[in-house]
């Protein structure tokens, strides 16, 4: 029997770990639709991502999606529900 990893959010992913995007929580901020922007950058459900580097605690994280790397603040990363591998 294999253990099914539980869903979590991107900000909790360990450095070097990969995951699949499951869902983006809607989040509007000052007229900017953060969830939509994240999708436009490639954080689309079904895409594989990898935590490249975590900075200082509480600081931004660097995430690899496709061939690009994006720096996200913690609260942005928390919008992305993922299935870790």
């Amino acid at each position: 029997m294999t253990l099914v990893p539980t869903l979590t959010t991107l900000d909790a992913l360990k450095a070097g770990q990969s995951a699949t995007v499951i869902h983006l929580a809607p989040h509007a901020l000052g007229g900017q639709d953060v969830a939509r922007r994240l999708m436009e950058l490639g954080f689309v459900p079904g895409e594989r991502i990898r935590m490249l580097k975590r900075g200082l605690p509480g600081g931004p994280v660097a995430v690899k999606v496709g061939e690009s790397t994006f720096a996200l603040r913690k609260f942005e990363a928390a919008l992305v529900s993922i299935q870790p591998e």
Partner: protein
Amino acid sequence: MGVMEQQVAARSPLIALLGNPNCGKTALFNRLTGARQKVANYAGVTIERKEGSFTSPAGRALRVLDLPGAYSLSAQTPDEAITRDVVAGLRAGEAAPDAVVCVVNATNLRLNLRLVLEIQRLGLPMLLALNMVDVAKKRGIEIDTAKLAQELGMPVVETVAIQTGGEQALLDALDRMALAPATPNSLDSIDAVPVEQTQREVRRILAACTSHAHDTGNLSEQIDHVVLHPVIGPVVLAALMFVIFQAVFSWAEAPMDFITGSVESIGAWIGGAMPEGPLRSLIVDGIIAGVGGVLVFLPQILILFFFILILEDCGYLPRAAFLLDRMMGGVGLSGRAFIPLLSSFACAIPGVMAARTIQNPRDRLVTIMIAPLMTCSARLPVYALIIAAFIPAREIGMFNLQGLVLFALYALGIVSAMGVAWYMKRRSGGGQHPLLLELPAYHWPHLQTLALGLWERAKIFLTRVGTLILTLMVLLWFLSSFPGAPEGATQPPIYYSVAGMLGRALAVIFEPIGFGWQICIALVPGMAAREVAVGALGTVYALSGSGDEVANTLGPLIAGSWSLATALSLLAWYVYAPQCIATLSVVRRETGSAKYAWMMAGYMFALAYTASFITYRVALYLGAG
């Protein structure tokens, strides 16, 4: 054919370059146009509009517009809104392009193709430039361009923007295209399709047209393991900053001496060739000395931008923003504010302009407001004069006391800036803003981009010197020259001028912080450019000669006539020094409102006065009167 159509037909066709940030679009634009570029702003906003022209191999004259980089046409940032509106023909004063060249980064089609599919829905004539194919091939990414062209239904060409001749395929393809004014579809056609569906289409096309042999070690990732490391990263950043500052001050010395020398000899030459009189004084003391005093900062600005452009081009700057985001986020700034604030150490003007790269309007405003608190190089002559005159060159441990004081002044500026940013964050009560910063793959800086970038900076600075600063210098000359001294005057002529009267009136306000009328008079012309205050002090103390000579003789003179408390108070004043008209006018232009310029002048004046008052009173109490 109506008159309108005839006019449109008479213009050469307009091609828009459009693509994601970091796809090499600007390098391709530079490759196509060389130096035949016009850089201006889009009407009403501070976003750069870059247009150029070139002639195709078939002899067709073409105009090309380098649109701001965009991830999507749903336009989440002001830059993207411009790109969307121009390409959709919705921006007033801008004609819709006759054709769109979509530039994509061949190593990152998964991200780039989504934008291509969005633009395609506008129904304009399109061409895909598969840029950076050389890097893609090296990385083992095979792209079937014929298949891709078939899937997308548009011509696909391979380009290498950083190589001479790397644009040839694009030129040939453009010549094969019929270019006639086209009407784009409505923007609604883009939002009609959800992002997920577009991404599914991208995946399908990628599966059909590309094969990715196993990526053999990604160098960028390996560099990032060091550069983004929580401990090593900041050490590397600090070391880089140290080298840059060293270079800005040591490399610039020779060219600055050269400019000062040339300005002085031109002044002397004209002075000798003209009869004594107000006109000679205006040209020599007002225009040449005044403009020369600002021009002297060109070498420092260029050296600083040399490093900034290299770090930007090779991809390091976003990493610096990543490293600093935690710290700067604490006071409500974005990591992106790092670049404008760094520029402000040379001069607040390019710093304020560089704040354009910050997308969030509030973050951008805070960055602009604190930029002048970074110690600009114009404050250095004043610091140097006072420190040399009042602070003994004593060794304290391994440090020199004078150096420590200078360092403390820089640090005080930075700490105050953080305090102001924190206060503004508290006041606006805004929550967290998204960072969403791409960390592009590293690559070697590109010489042509660097040269054009530096040329652009020099042009902007020289234009300002030639217009606004020149005007201010002439105005200040009038203020400090008229009315002239009466018969049998006992004071230097400036004492009796409008500037002198102003200075003496100001002395009432500045007496509590230890400034006599001499200092107050010097503060008036210091409004044009801070360092002019040194020359003005020279005038007040009726010294003849200029530049270094004044500074050398002025030191002992003020050491004899000011108290230490006054000197320290003036140093504290210059940490905040609100009196830079050039900066205030740029702030007004960049924020589009005089309100913020007044706010800046107001808060900096309040800080300067408070800091000087405390410094002066404490120094008096400690017996430095």
